[in-house]
């Protein structure tokens, strides 16, 4: 018989589905766009990108609340319930190969690709958990690459580690962008914003435009990191770190520097 847990989901099915729909755009989709725009600032130079990362990390002790409350938890909810939704359906594009049916199926496929990609991406850059022994382990297997006070150089190195990395990122990002753009279109139907076939056609054009725009931003970021001179970037970041600590723009925290940068700073100090 039903456990009370499944009863809860059943009773609130409408609310949960509406929250799932909403969470795809707010905060998850909105975050994704801001994230890609931030990354694309690398084309402007190491300084632009590093300054944006300083700004994010200026939240300091409350950063984790923002990370978990506005990014990780909503994403985990959207992804987790997304998998539940996928399991409760049966695609039939081989029988009914209409464009809208393919878009429906692609929404599910790109959702699964996004799940795998984002899972890897967060491990690759952020490392999932910032607990001592785990962080050491993640580093050892080439994960947890990103150091916020060596933002550009560590991201660049992570991207340039193998030729497969940019290819993998491109596929993952393209899946996320399709999923967002097509998701905004289905959202418009789910919430009753565009109702008639004509309006839905116009909305398709607008959503394709949104997807194209976000994809250009994403490719800019990818190209930026893949072509970055990471040694030069690191030098500049160390200068910026020391200056910024001196003028009080950021709080001294060597944990947020990459290991090689920490060593370099120590060596310099000894020389002085």
């Amino acid at each position, binding site marked *: 018989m039903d456990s009370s847990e499944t009863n809860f989901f059943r009773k609130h099915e*409408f609310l949960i*589905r509406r929250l799932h729909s909403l969470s795809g755009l707010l905060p998850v989709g909105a975050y994704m766009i801001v994230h890609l725009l931030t990354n694309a600032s690398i084309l402007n130079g190491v300084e632009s990108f590093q300054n944006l990362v300083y700004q994010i990390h200026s939240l300091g002790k409350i950063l984790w609340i923002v990370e978990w409350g506005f990014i990780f938890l909503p994403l985990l909810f959207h992804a987790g319930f997304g998998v539940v939704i996928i399991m409760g*359906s049966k695609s*039939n594009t081989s029988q009914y190969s209409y464009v*809208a*049916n393919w878009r*429906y199926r692609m929404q599910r496929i790109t959702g699964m690709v996004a799940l795998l990609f984002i899972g890897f991406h967060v491990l690759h850059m952020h490392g999932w958990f910032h607990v001592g022994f785990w962080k050491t382990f993640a580093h050892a297997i080439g994960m947890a690459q990103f150091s916020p006070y060596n933002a550009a150089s560590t991201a660049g190195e992570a991207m340039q580690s193998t030729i497969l990395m940019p290819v993998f990122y491109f596929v993952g990002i393209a899946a996320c962008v399709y999923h967002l753009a097509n998701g905004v279109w289905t959202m418009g139907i789910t919430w009753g*914003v565009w109702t008639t*076939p004509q309006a839905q056609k116009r909305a398709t054009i607008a959503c394709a435009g949104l997807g194209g725009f976000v994809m250009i931003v994403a490719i800019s970021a990818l190209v930026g990191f893949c072509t970055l001179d990471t040694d030069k970037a690191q030098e500049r970041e160390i200068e910026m770190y020391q200056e910024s600590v001196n003028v009080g723009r950021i709080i001294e925290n060597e944990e947020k520097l990459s290991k090689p940068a920490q060593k370099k700073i120590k060596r310099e100090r000894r020389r002085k």
Partner: protein
Amino acid sequence: MIKNVYGENLTSFTVKVRRQASPDSQSYWEAFNIPYQADLNVISVLQQIAKMSKNAKGESTTPVAWDCGCLEEVCGACTMVINGRVRQSCSALVDNILDENNDVLRLEPMSKFPVIRDLVVDRSRVFRALQKIKAWVPVDGYYDMGAGPKQDRKRQEQAYPLSECMSCGCCLEACPQYLKVETQRESDETDEQFEDRKNAEYDKNFVGAHAINQAMLFNSNPTGKMISGERLDALTDEGGIQICGNAQNCVAVCPKEIPLTTSIAKAGRAATIHKIKKFFDSNEK
């Protein structure tokens, strides 16, 4: 005259039927050879099969069971899957189908409903969904309530296409979010008990595009509107409109070309507003 793959005039064609003797037996394919005549429809092919009662191998066999009523695409009883696509067999012309698909006609029962026998399925879930969302105008009472309010021309014109639904189930068969629900009868159950259990099971699952569309039809009727809140409650209940994933197959296969996705979008909007109003105002019904 229809030509076969070799460019010769077609003298006969093959019909493959997915057969099933009873609700709980295995399904299997049986082939039949039908002499070609111009202007056959699928129903007349099935009549031919019943008359021959022989399969393509020349073995004698039971006639294929199928359902029909109006024979003019208004009752929905003859709906089945023909060459992979759901449609009415009475309006499916063999010449057109053979034109698209060399020499073979494949007939299957709808896959989202329990099979009773061969091509006959139990469509009771389609009608249960109409009960659930109260697809009627409530005028029953002990006294004459007089004439209802007048409907203006524009609203009539908007409502008419929605009212053409014949509950055939095509939109449900093609919907990737609509999954088969089959309840097995237990040996010690009365008819009523089984019926109740079956309906409870239906009510937990997706109501489907046709019911969402009917809810919008009756909510736009000046008298039907009186219980619009109850219909929206039903649409936001378990198995309600939230299950729709916007694949839009329903609208593509509907033989009556009903603007189902427009109804779904309007119902989605109305349902959300209804829920928000109910949350903030306990008087809202």
